[in-house]
């Protein structure tokens, strides 16, 4: 049994907690650096990370790293609870969506003072650095870039005898998709319905020179934008390019229930680093390409960190933690152990070293990023508080429109007014 039925514990239990709070977390080996490392992800990520940990421990006597890993859905409640208890892990794998939430509430350590010293990320390009900044301060170390990517079933387009939807406009895209649906007698759709998903929405907004949010955290679009978006998808539903509402609603916003995986639609709107996740659940070979494009010159894409390392503000071992993080992104051996599993490395030198031993799927993703990189625009500013709630709200309104509960125009109106209410509350 691994119980710690030691005397101190029992004594504290007997005496009650209040007065002894201060004794709470005395590190077991004060002379050593004990680092708690926390990440979400698959078993493969776990294996890779632990290999890097053990190599680092071999090289650095006195550093002991305890890995803690969970799946995405379980990861955040535990992190929130531990942070609320002032007991978060030292090194935290952070998501772009959450970094502002944690940083602005003082839970993360600004890393600017380490840059150029123990954190040697000078060869990261500006975009890879800026994407980890919140309100001008660096709160994350880029673990790899990704971009929005459309993942599609190649065979479905072949069967319809039309071209694959590579770098096409939205109009052309829906045309191809409708052809795919027709070729499958309406039992299999050309694309899933993306009207409730934020990433194609944001891309599309950027194509028309708008954004989800402005620099100062206001809403970056107006009623007409939202209405046009819902109208575009309403038309796609009419032409059967995408499935009806009751089929689309089976998608629970994860890989396993996505209509592409379920064998009900040929295209999924996602991120490049999830390509592998889709491919292992699909028998047909999948393609990866950019989202459909608008009339304007900008494709709307941008590179963003698929994830980053952030450091807990209350860590007692900041320096050793930074050094380990640096090892995983800048040391060739360390970075090679992680590979491109977390995204395509930001450092050109490391990217090259890692690319040497990629498998076919990994290579496809790296090629995609190289293809996108020259076309990307600047990364949007860190989202304001309430952004997560607005994302959920978009999905709800998109469903209201697709189920015919509200009209397209009312949907646009409602989106704007609810978004403003959420922003003013946060």
């Amino acid at each position, binding site marked *: 049994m691994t119980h710690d039925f030691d005397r101190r514990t029992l004594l504290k239990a007997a005496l*009650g907690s209040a007065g002894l709070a201060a004794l709470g977390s005395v590190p077991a080996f004060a002379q050593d650096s004990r680092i708690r490392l926390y990440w979400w992800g698959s078993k493969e990520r776990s294996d890779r990370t632990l290999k890097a940990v053990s190599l680092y421990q071999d090289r650095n006597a006195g550093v002991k790293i305890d890995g803690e890993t969970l799946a995405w*859905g379980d990861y*955040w*409640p535990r992190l*929130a609870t531990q*942070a*609320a208890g002032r007991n978060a892990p030292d090194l935290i794998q952070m998501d772009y969506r959450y970094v502002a*939430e*944690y940083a602005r*509430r*003082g*839970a993360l350590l600004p890393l600017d003072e380490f840059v150029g010293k123990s954190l040697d990320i000078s060869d990261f390009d500006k975009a890879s650095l800026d994407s980890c900044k919140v309100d001008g301060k660096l709160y994350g170390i880029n673990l790899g870039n990704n971009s929005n990517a459309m993942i599609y079933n190649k065979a479905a387009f072949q069967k319809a005898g039309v071209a694959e939807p590579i770098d096409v406009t939205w109009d052309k895209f829906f045309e191809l998709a409708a052809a795919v649906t027709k070729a499958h007698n309406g039992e299999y759709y050309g694309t899933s319905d993306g009207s409730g998903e934020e990433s194609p929405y944001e891309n599309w907004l950027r194509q028309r020179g708008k954004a989800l949010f402005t620099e100062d955290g206001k809403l970056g679009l107006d009623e007409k934008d939202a209405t046009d978006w819902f109208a575009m998808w309403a038309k796609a539903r009419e032409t059967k390019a995408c499935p009806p*509402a*009751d*089929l*689309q*609603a*089976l998608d*629970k*916003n*994860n890989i*396993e*229930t996505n209509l592409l995986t379920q064998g009900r639609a040929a295209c999924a709107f996602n991120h490049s680093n999830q390509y592998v996740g889709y491919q292992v659940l699909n028998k047909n070979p999948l393609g990866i390409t950019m989202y459909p494009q608008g009339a304007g010159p900008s494709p709307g894409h941008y590179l963003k960190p698929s994830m980053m390392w952030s450091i807990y503000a209350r860590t007692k071992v900041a320096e050793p933690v930074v050094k380990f993080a640096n090892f995983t992104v800048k040391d060739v051996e360390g970075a090679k152990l992680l590979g491109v599993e977390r995204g395509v490395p930001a450092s050109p030198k490391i990217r090259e070293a890692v690319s040497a031993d990629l498998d076919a799927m990994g290579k496809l993703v790296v090629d995609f990023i190289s293809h996108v990189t020259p076309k990307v625009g600047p990364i949007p500013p860190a989202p304001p508080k*309430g952004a*997560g*709630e607005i994302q*959920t709200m978009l*999905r*709800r309104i998109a*469903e*209201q429109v697709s*189920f015919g*509960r509200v009209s397209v125009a009312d949907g646009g109106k409602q989106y704007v007014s609810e978004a403003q209410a959420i922003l003013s509350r946060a």
Partner: protein
Amino acid sequence: MTTTAQIPLTIIEPEKTSKRWRGLSRALVAYSFLIPWLIGFLGLTLGPTLASLYLSFTNFDLLQDPQVIGLANYQRIFTNDAKFWHSMQVTFTYVILAVPLKLAFALGLAMVLNRGIAGLPLYRALFYLPSLLGASVAIAVLWRQLFAKDGLVNVVLGFFGFAGPSWISDPSYSLYTLVLLSVWQFGSPMIIFLAGLRQIPPDVYEAASIDGANKVQQFIKITLPLLTPVVFFNFIVQTIDAFKAFTPAFIISEGTGGPIDSTLFYTLYLYQEGFAYFRMGYASALAWILLIIIACFTAFSFLTSRYWVHYND
């Protein structure tokens, strides 16, 4: 008091003290049974409970210290929160439908399984299986295969000439599939009913069959009254559980409460507020409102129980 009463008083006095002593020692013995629970309640449960009550009067974003804001959370809930009313409605619908159905189903099968036919342990285990699986992904998959547009239910309905909707993903019906999910996981109340049935002494049936009562009369006159403590228990516990229902929606909708918030249970809403949107103070206020509703319901049930629950004591 008259003088006549004063005289015996001196005589009664020692007896009174011993009575008091007996009362005290009886209380002490009773409390000795309660000690583990009391330690647990005062040491582990009460503190966090009061803390959540305190947090309900604050603005608490999990990461920074809570700021007291008085009744602002409660005020917002009652005056400016459409989702509160909506999720209340969802939860009440769920409670009203799921609890009676589940209890009826559980009692019915417990009666069937209380008979002497072969293979019963196997059936009992099978019937309990859905409850064993808890929150497994397999359940989500099953529900999709049953209740999607081309699901099994619609295949059967199609046989009779009906074209059913996509029950699980149509906001008009999705809540009812969760009610069915709850009924399907009837294992726990069934086991409790079974245990209750086993505790009914057989000789009361013997007496009844001598009296010439038939099966239905036996059930109404003997089984049901003797089973009322267990029925009462299952009713209270299942209702509380249904008010707090979280897992069914979490399995089927991945925590979104969708489509269009049609399965946004009250607790799911509270969870989103607390953990997804970092408003734990608000979530705590929501939780305490639920507690008060459940407490009123439970108190009412206990008050009426004296009219229909038959204890042996």
